[in-house]
């Protein structure tokens, strides 16, 4: 941070720093408070740890999974499916957005279908996918793709159209072709929208993949959660959810980091 230029400014800077510190400390306090209440409640018998598990049991489960080598298998499976679903969904979604931008008539014709597809809970298609594609990884990835695809298309297309409205007249007065309008104005202006779409679809892909794993899978965090629920091993469920929390947060921050890089 910059050095103070006056007494009052120093006071102002101190206040800003103090506020920032308070926020960070409070965040840590919330987490620690939650974890210790949970642990304490289990130890003191406020609730049955067999049903609600406890932080120490979650930790033990994760360590055990790590020890017998299963942890990386499940994390790897889910992560691979999610990253694949996310990348394919975003890429396809962006390409469809480009196509619809290029052909306004097609966009007009397909608009109601896009609206319906956007509103439809894609998860409902799960059983259909299994029948069509088979009970395996492919179905799970396709689920991840489907869930992120439509939202990407809609977000990116709207970004493109907004940029077009704005600058179309200027480009026409300069005598620009459609391709030039796209490459020089619409695409660069659409980059921030593309990144907001990434942020949304990264979360969406997790949803798609976990649900996909609920339906068909032999490995993965979604599989562990369902399996744990079925055999009443709530420690396993909670441990998987905890790992999932960490992974999802890491992936979100990776995209947010990318966003910061691109914007500056």
């Amino acid at each position: 941070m910059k050095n103070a230029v006056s007494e009052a400014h120093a006071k102002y800077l101190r206040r800003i720093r103090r506020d920032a510190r308070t926020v960070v400390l409070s965040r840590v306090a919330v987490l620690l408070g939650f974890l210790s209440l949970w642990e304490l409640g289990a130890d003191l018998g406020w609730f049955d740890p067999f049903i609600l598990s406890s932080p120490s049991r979650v930790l033990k489960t994760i360590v055990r999974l790590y020890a017998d080598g299963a942890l990386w298998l499940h994390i790897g499976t889910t992560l691979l499916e999610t990253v694949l679903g996310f990348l394919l969904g975003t890429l396809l979604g962006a390409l469809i957005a480009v196509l619809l931008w290029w052909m306004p008539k097609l966009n007009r014709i397909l608009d109601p279908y896009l609206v319906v597809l956007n509103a439809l809970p894609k998860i409902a298609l799960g059983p259909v996918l299994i029948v069509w594609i088979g009970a395996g990884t492919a179905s799970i990835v396709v689920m991840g793709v489907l869930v992120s695809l439509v939202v990407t298309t809609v977000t990116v297309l709207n970004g493109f159209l907004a940029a077009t409205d704005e600058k179309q007249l200027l480009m026409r007065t300069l005598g620009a072709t459609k391709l030039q309008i796209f490459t020089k104005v619409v695409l660069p202006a659409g980059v921030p929208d593309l990144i907001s779409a990434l942020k949304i679809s990264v979360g969406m892909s997790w949803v798609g993949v976990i649900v996909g794993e609920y339906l068909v899978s032999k490995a993965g965090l979604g599989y562990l959660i369902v399996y744990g629920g079925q055999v009443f091993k709530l420690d396993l469920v909670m441990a998987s959810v905890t790992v999932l929390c960490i992974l999802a947060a890491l992936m979100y921050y990776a995209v947010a980091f990318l966003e910061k890089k691109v914007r500056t």
Partner: protein
Amino acid sequence: MQSELMKLENVSLAYHTLAGETVAIQNLNLSVLDGEFLAIVGPSGCGKTTVLSLIMGLMRPTSGSVRFSGKDLRLGYMLQRDHLLDHRTVEKNVLLGLEVQHRLTEQSKARAFELLDTYGLGDFRTYKPQQLSGGMRQKVALIRTLALEPDLLLLDEPFSALDYQTRLNLCDEVCRIIRSEGKSAVLVTHDISEAISTADRVAVFSARPATLKTVIEIGFPKDMPPLERRSQAAFHDYFDRIWKELQP
């Protein structure tokens, strides 16, 4: 006698909407002379901007014709808003038109940068548009247009989105630039004072459908800057004449 650069002959234009047909311009005859600054004033919504779109070729007249003195006459259009691209620096914005028209050479680039230097924007070449004031942005937009070396500049209310002080200063500066570059220009405005302070001739349009009511010759020397014109005694006489013409 100056030669005619561009001529509108019996031009009419009708817009079509679901509700019907709106005649925007009716039997318009108007020419722009080489080296002149022509202002068009008229009530708002009367189709002044449409005239510029017709000259630019963005629209085709329903009847009548738009003629130019030479086939390869180059046109430059300046819009009400600067429309600078946020993701490009000032210098990249200035080169946009040249890029689009595949005329970006070392020479044309050097000339565009020279314009930036001459008109006080040289130090801002690597800035992003968001870092500039409204007046500076509009000046960058003008240089983007001038970089194309147009023979005829079409100015579509280029100052109306600015605050009053910036507006007077920028108008003064833009006029100097246009005069010193020896360009011909058509300025569309609803501001009578702006028209008198910039133009050699003022064309007064009627309300829709737009017809040409009259053309008033402004007797100030061509190179007298707008702010100086505003303090002349004759300024108010011109104002009154145009004001009366504009009354329905």
